[in-house]
């Protein structure tokens, strides 16, 4: 059985349905990307998986490591080993870097050592006591990943980690994705608009358009098939 | 259920659609029917309070111009009413200015104060606006209590010489005496009520009033589409104060004087409760709120003993004076329930929806 299984997921907001029968599977130790344009339903899929109040799930099932996520309270989901690095990072701006990480560790069942995270992310070490709001976008992204990693998750959902970041930071984040998947055995579902990041990091790609999974392709195929990219991703 | 869809249901079930006449006829009906209804034996049984009902309806409706139509919550609305009351009382008792001159001046003065305060605070965020109106209202209360120059009468308020010569009272009834005619005070109030609320209705249905609704719905959008949001708010605040003062002016004669309670924060709070209780979404909502509030107050505080099963066969006597003196507890409960169901619908919204649902069922429509 796959680590994460999404079956026939229908979800939406008050204004209308967004997801129509979404199916996706992520196997243990895989890096899988979910690609699509703005408004295609990527973030809605992510929010459905982690049990956010909005969108409302209207049908289908989501299973993680054998647990039915739709029957699990949102705040219990991280304890199953599924952690979210949300879009726009959402670090707690008034809390310091250490506090942000400590907070996450405190609410995990089997957390990693907080101090070890600073070895893992040396760029955060100098700014342990700095409020997150005074950090650059790239630094906040590191913090958001560290905050997730400290909970010692089986799987991380990464929602647009490279949005609005300078190319060299994008490279760094690509490297981090490689490291945590290969060296630390964390499974990753990556949501991206930036095809290059997905090509550089993921093994397999789901293409989502207008709330439907329209294709599931290998990195090879996505690299070569320009019409495919044109059609669903606008590149 | 929202306003338009409620109206839609009513239309579908064939409720009478009077179009543009609905509000004028409704106001007329309230003015004509209120006294006979409240003075009926099954209701309050005495007619004297009916004029107070109408006056408070004007005041609470003026508040709803702010809350219901513009989306501004003022915690100091009683101040503007009280300015009207005190202006007339001072003019009559100390300045020997006739009522017919004092009343419009009082209304203008109230509007002027509101305009200045509005210029200062109308653009503030919801909570800040509410708190600042409260602060100004407290200040007005302080001034009246301080009794500058002996004008406002301090804690005792003003009573002596505050009734114009053409007002007569006998056996609890008040009359307006003009030349040889003696008109019941209630009908004088009713006339002002109908005219005043028609003006208010025209205000909310005019292009100006529709823009206020747009401001309530989405301030940022209104601004980006070319609406000077701040000025609209200032003028809504000013007009609301003028109509509140109109009520205050009538209250002066009705209560024969001015008391500090007319400027108190508790009164402002009661105005909010009445508006919400009735249904801020509707023009007639505040009127319904005043009716419920005042009826419950008068009725329950008068109600002493519940005898079961019959007065003639008193098997069980329950002494209710002790409980019903605390009628505000039950109103508070009703209020909380109304807010939980829907903050802007009130009893009128609930009643409308219920009527619509019932008549739909009677006509055999499935929902």
């Amino acid at each position, binding site marked *: 059985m796959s680590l994460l299984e999404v079956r026939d997921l229908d979800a939406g907001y008050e204004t209308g349905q967004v997801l129509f029968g979404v199916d996706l599977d992520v196997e243990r130790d895989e890096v899988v990307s979910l690609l699509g344009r703005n408004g295609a339903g990527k973030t809605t899929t992510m929010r459905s998986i982690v049990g956010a109040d909005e969108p409302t799930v209207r049908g289908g099932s989501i299973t993680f490591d054998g647990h039915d996520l739709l029957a699990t309270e949102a705040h219990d989901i991280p304890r199953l080993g599924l952690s979210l690095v949300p879009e726009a990072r959402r670090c707690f701006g008034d809390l310091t870097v250490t506090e942000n990480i400590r907070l996450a560790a405190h609410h995990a069942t089997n957390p990693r050592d907080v101090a070890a995270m600073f070895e893992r992310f040396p760029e955060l070490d100098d700014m342990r006591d700095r409020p997150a709001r005074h950090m650059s976008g790239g630094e906040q992204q590191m913090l958001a990943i560290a905050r997730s990693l400290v909970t010692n998750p089986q799987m991380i959902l990464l929602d647009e980690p490279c949005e609005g970041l300078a190319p060299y930071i994008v490279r760094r984040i690509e490297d981090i994705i490689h490291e945590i998947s290969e060296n630390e055995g964390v499974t990753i579902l990556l949501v991206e608009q930036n095809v290059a990041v997905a090509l550089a990091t993921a093994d397999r790609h789901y293409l989502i358009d207008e709330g439907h999974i329209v294709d599931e392709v290998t990195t090879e195929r996505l690299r070569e098939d320009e019409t495919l990219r044109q059609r669903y991703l606008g590149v | 259920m929202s306003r338009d869809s409620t109206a839609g249901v009513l239309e579908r079930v064939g409720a009478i659609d009077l179009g543009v006449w609905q509000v004028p006829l409704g106001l007329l009906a309230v003015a004509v029917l209120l006294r006979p209804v409240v003075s009926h034996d099954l209701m309050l049984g005495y007619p004297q309070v009916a004029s107070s009902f109408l006056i408070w309806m004007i005041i609470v409706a003026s508040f709803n111009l702010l809350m219901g139509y513009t989306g501004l919550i003022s915690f100091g609305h009683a101040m503007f009413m009280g300015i009207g009351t005190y202006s007339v009382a001072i003019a009559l008792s100390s300045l020997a200015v006739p009522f017919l001159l004092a009343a419009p001046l009082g209304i203008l003065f109230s509007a002027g104060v509101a305009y200045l305060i509005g210029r200062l605070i109308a653009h503030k965020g919801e909570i800040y606006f509410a708190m600042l109106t409260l602060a100004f209202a407290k200040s007005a209360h302080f001034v009246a209590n301080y009794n500058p120059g002996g004008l406002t009468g301090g804690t005792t308020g003003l009573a002596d010489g505050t009734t114009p010569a053409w007002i007569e009272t006998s056996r609890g009834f008040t009359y307006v005496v003009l030349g040889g005619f003696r008109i019941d005070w209630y009908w004088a109030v009713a006339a002002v009520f109908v005219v005043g609320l028609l003006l208010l209705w025209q205000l909310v249905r*005019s292009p100006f009033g529709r823009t206020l609704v747009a401001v309530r*719905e989405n301030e940022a*959008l209104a601004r980006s589409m070319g609406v000077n949001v701040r000025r609209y708010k200032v003028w809504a605040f000013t007009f609301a104060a003028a109509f509140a003062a109109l009520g205050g002016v009538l209250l002066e004669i009705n209560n024969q004087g001015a008391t500090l309670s007319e400027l108190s924060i508790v009164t402002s709070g009661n105005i909010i409760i009445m508006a919400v209780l009735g249904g801020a979404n509707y023009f007639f909502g505040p009127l319904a709120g005043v009716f419920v509030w005042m009826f419950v107050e008068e009725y329950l505080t008068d109600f002493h003993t519940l005898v079961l099963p019959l007065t003639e066969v008193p098997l069980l006597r329950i002494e209710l004076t002790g409980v019903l003196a605390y009628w505000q507890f039950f109103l508070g409960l009703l209020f909380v329930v109304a807010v939980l169901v829907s903050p802007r619908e009130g009893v009128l919204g609930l009643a409308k929806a219920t009527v619509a649902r019932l008549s739909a069922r009677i006509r055999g429509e499935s929902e």
Partner: protein
Amino acid sequence: MSDDVDPRSAALGTEGLSKHFGGIVAVDEVDLAVPAGELRAIIGPNGAGKTTLFNVVTHALAPTSGSVYLGGEDITDVPQERRPHLGLARSFQSNELFAELSVLENVRVIAQTAAAGTFSFSLLGDGRSVRAEAARDILARVGLSEHAATEATNLSHGDQRRLGIAMAVATEPSVLLLDEPTSGMGPGESRETVELVQSLQDDLGLTVLMIEHDMEIVLSVSDRITVLNRGSVLATGTPDEIQGDDDVQDAYLGGVREEL
């Protein structure tokens, strides 16, 4: 590649326009000059500052520095609510509506504002009939006539987007800023919306700036394209020029070429 028109005489121009949030530079020294009648697409990756640019141009946010010109006039210090009356209108990325008003009323209130000014004491007459004809015409134009009496919040997503355009048009603009008018629409609906924009532009003689992420649409309809990246203008040019530009490919298209 850049604009070759003087921003001070263009239909819409900016000079050195910047917006900083604390230490973050959201819009960085942007120079734009959009000649009258042009359909200009604004593209760029997420977070490039496209919407912030619109906010600064319309003064929803005060610029940190720089100037904005509308039809040759310096409007940098003109308050936000005055700008629609000078001919500058916008639609929003999210569906901004007067939720509890009917579709017709949404448009009518704005048509009435356009006719009467930023503030008007018109206390006489029925607000529901003033400018109702004009509003109906606009609804007919955008294809919302049948929904005129519907409460705006009950419209479908696509119709709400169209209502947003209708409201912007109701201000009687000369320059129209559209923020992702097709977002959340399917290809068919997107196509219709873009055709609607084009027909409005032709009929009303509008200058249009349109933020759009669908490259197919952008390449096929725009006269010229401005590419924003991290707050500043990366390139401006015709669709052909932009497609052939290596910088643009690198920054906006995520360096796919480099990977290939």
